[in-house]
């Protein structure tokens, strides 16, 4: 086996959070980017997928551990890497050609070579004739082509892509993926390897040689799946679907383990508090309605497939519903719990009663209620954020606060006045 192009060794990444606490995003990452492969990174939202890419590109240094490029420890930018961004990140004041040229100019290439390379990159992605167009005149698909052309122009050994096709419509994404594979398969030329962050399991199985699955908070590599399917791959082949299912299974078991961890019963350890999955209450209601329409039980992937909601969002919502004890998730299926059935049968008032009762099963909400009583019905956001940071140091306090307010408001457990930033009793 040849030496890896890039290597992450024991990489940790922390970001300074609010109130002087560090937010740990990535933990103990060991990963190699091999010669001539496409590596896909999958994981739930906010799991540090994009951070992982930026570490490989050298845009941000690791807190601990090291990133290597051809055995040399990386200081600053990775010279062999070019990045494609999720939102295209094109300069709106430059034409297509200028957008490509500008990154070459930054490398101080002679004018002749610059023109030549820009031209090649532009024609490689089929943008000839659009050189003088401004990004605002282009469709999203074409914008991302410019993004790819810009990256190809610097002739990178590794192309790293941050959810490159999530902002374009499904058909265009299909076309772009195929074009990208063609470019990569030209063995004579760079990019030698591609690292893609994705939110679509299908996309990962379609493109990759290996799939890295991140999970947990802080995120670590849960597993790396080999993808031996021969190219060109057909997304309707049975082996393809089998692999998609397997990846689904692994992600689901990572996010919703069958072993109960989110105990609605008061926890034995007094300080332990369940982190809230950041799901909106209408989403939870919608999930329950959907489940009812499906006859009370359905497969998890079915939810994602039929509602066109990203799988990660479905998982978060299911997690929230499970935490409130409305649903159960034996294996990969989704069914109502007795409480969930009662909830669905009730009218709006009844539902709110049940919702409130379920909230109070969660320790975090009981803590908030106690604090409110202690403060005689006026609790400042500031103070609550502080409490959340103390009790849930791994979580983003602001996000937890938002979820908390949304759930609490729906259950009429407390009210929140945004202008004064205080929680009060209903």
């Amino acid at each position, binding site marked *: 086996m040849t030496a890896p192009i890039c290597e992450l060794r024991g990489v940790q990444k922390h970001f300074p959070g609010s109130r002087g606490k560090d937010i740990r995003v990535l933990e103990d990452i060991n990963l190699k980017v091999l010669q001539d492969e496409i590596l896909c990174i999958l994981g739930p939202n906010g799991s540090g997928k994009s951070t992982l890419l*930026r570490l490989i*590109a*050298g*845009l941000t*240094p690791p807190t601990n551990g090291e990133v290597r490029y051809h055995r040399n420890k990386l*200081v*600053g*930018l990775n*010279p062999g890497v*070019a*990045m494609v*961004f*999720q*939102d295209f*990140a094109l*300069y*709106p*004041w*430059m034409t297509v050609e200028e957008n490509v040229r*500008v*990154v070459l*100019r*930054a*490398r*101080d290439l002679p004018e002749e070579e610059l023109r030549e390379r820009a031209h090649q990159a532009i024609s490689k992605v089929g943008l000839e004739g659009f050189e003088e167009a*401004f*990004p*605002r005149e282009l469709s999203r698909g074409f914008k991302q082509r410019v993004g790819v052309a*810009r990256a190809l122009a*610097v002739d990178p050994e590794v192309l790293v892509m941050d959810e490159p096709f999530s902002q374009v419509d499904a058909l265009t994404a299909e076309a772009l993926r195929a074009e990208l594979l063609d470019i990569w398969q030209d063995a004579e030329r760079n990019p030698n390897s591609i690292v893609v962050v994705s939110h679509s399991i299908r996309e990962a199985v379609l493109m990759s040689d290996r799939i890295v699955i991140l999970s947990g908070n802080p995120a670590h590599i849960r597993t790396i799946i080999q993808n031996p399917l021969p190219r060109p791959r057909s997304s309707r082949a049975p082996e393809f679907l089998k692999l998609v299912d397997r990846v689904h299974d692994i992600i689901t078991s990572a996010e919703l383990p069958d072993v109960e961890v989110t105990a609605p019963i008061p926890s034995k350890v007094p300080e332990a508090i369940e982190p809230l999955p950041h799901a909106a209450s209408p989403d939870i209601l919608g999930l329950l309605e959907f489940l009812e329409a499906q006859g009370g039980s359905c497969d998890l992937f079915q939810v994602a497939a039929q509602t066109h909601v990203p799988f990660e969002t479905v998982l978060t919502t299911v997690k929230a519903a499970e935490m409130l004890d409305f649903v159960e998730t034996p294996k990969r299926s989704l069914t109502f719990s007795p409480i969930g059935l009662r909830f669905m049968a009730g009218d709006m008032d009844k539902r709110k009663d049940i919702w409130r009762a379920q909230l109070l099963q969660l320790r975090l909400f009981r803590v908030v209620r106690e604090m409110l009583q202690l403060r005689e019905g006026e609790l400042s956001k500031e103070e609550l954020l502080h409490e959340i940071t103390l009790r849930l140091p791994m979580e983003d306090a602001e996000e937890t606060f938002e979820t908390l307010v949304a759930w609490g408001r729906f259950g009429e457990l407390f009210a929140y006045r*945004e*202008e004064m930033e205080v929680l009060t009793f209903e």
Partner: protein
Amino acid sequence: MINQFLNNAWGQASNLFSAPIRRRRWVDLLVVAALAGIVMGLVLVAREWTVLQRPVVEINLSPWALPKYAILSFARAAVAFVISAAFTLVVAYWAARDPLAERFLIPILDTLQSVPLLAFMPVILLAMMSLFRSSNVGIELSAVIIIVTCQAWNMAFSFYQSLKTVPKELDEVSRGFGMNWSQRLRWVELPYATPGLVWNSMVSVANGWFFLMAAEAFKLGSRDFRLPGLGAYMSVAVDQGNVRAQVYAIVAMLTLVILLDQLIWKPVVAWSQRFQMDDAVKVEKRRSWLLRLLRRSEIWMRVRRAVTNLVPKRQPRPLAPSDISEEHTAFQRVLGGTMLILVLLALAFGGVKLVAVMAGVSSHEWLRLLQAGGASMARVLTSTFLATCWTLPVGLWIGLSPTWSRRLQPYVQVVASFPASILFVALIVALQRVGVNLFSSSILLMTISTQWYLLFNIIAGAQAVPMNLREAAKAYRFGLWKTSWKLYFPAIFPFLVTGWVTATGGAWNASIITEIVQFRGQTYTTFGLGAIVTQAADEGNIPLLAAAAILMALLVVLFNRLVWAPLYRLAETRYSVNR
């Protein structure tokens, strides 16, 4: 012939760029003429500045002399603007890049942009006069300085904010593909900041005219600090009661404003649209006939290309630039720290000096100053109230009707950038004849000079009222009165607050030149801080002058913090329609 030469000079490379539009030759003539005009102007100004100081300004009231005065005024404004722009680039960049400097510079800038700096004009004048005793340079410099002090802060603030809000991904591209700091500044940060800078430049220049007209016509008791220019022309015409010359001056000023609008701002705004981010609010496409012409002009395109090609080739730079780690080198930190300490020391030194000077003001005088402050404040607020009364309905009407805003906006813009300060003395004299005393006429003049800020903001607010809310109001039969109360007023409230802040700021500045007026050797005053500032300067009572100017600044800052800031917060939280 010229073309032949240019072709030889620049070679084949230029052909590659030639846009497919047909160039027109006669446009080239105009471009050359404009260049010649600029050179002429520079020569004129240079001669003026070396002339020995005269006891009384000599102004030729013949209309044929007006172009010369217009050019002189324009040159002052232009020089001041260039200085302001340079200041903006350096200070804002520094503040955005050095967190230590940011902590001190930004509050300072914020305060300076809200303080009525015209109050410091006598101070600056006296200081400059003592530096340059023998020539006009002192007065010229102080006019330029006073314009810079009213222009630079909001431009610097805008640039700073743009630098801080460059979209994360655009910034990552620049770093990820290895641009160094100067490339990032030229290709990413400056372009991104351009729309904001252009808009603030327009506001600043309009402000500058207001200050310049006041500065050119400035007299202090028996001493005459007037400078040859449109402001002085008007002032002399008023002194001599020459109505025809007054009309000439106003027409000349109006022409200058329109010319600037057509020849500079319109093209620049149309050009700056390309730097608008994609997802920005869809505004009507601004067009400029001049920009269209220029884009077809051969010479212009060649000059542009030549300038772009002139950028010197640098040595290839090693990969992995040091600034990627977001860590400053020790040298940079020391340099930044030293500069900051120097600035702060200078400020502290000035502050100590000032306190020492003000120690000479008696408590009795302080009381009088406070009363005067109250009187001025009352006038400022009354004028803002008056302006609100008429601009609110009119602004709503213009803003809510797309046809009318399209039709009227250009005129409103031109009228608004006309410096009302040129009219002040003439109007006061006229009103005095009718029997209106200075107390009331000063309020009226403040209204005239600041109403435009309100009108502009209300129009912008009315245009931003979401269509679906308007349709909802119609569908539920709200009626005019209820729609106004429940929809229009809340929706434009944030804009109204912005308008009020700028309008009161402008009114304070106007108070300094409207509370005391000299006309044919007579001095008319009304009780107020502005009058005291000028009188104290005239009497050479430096402690009182300093105390009055500082008190005025303090009043404005306090009022901003205690009244406008809470209103702003309210506007941002409750009355924001797009959140």
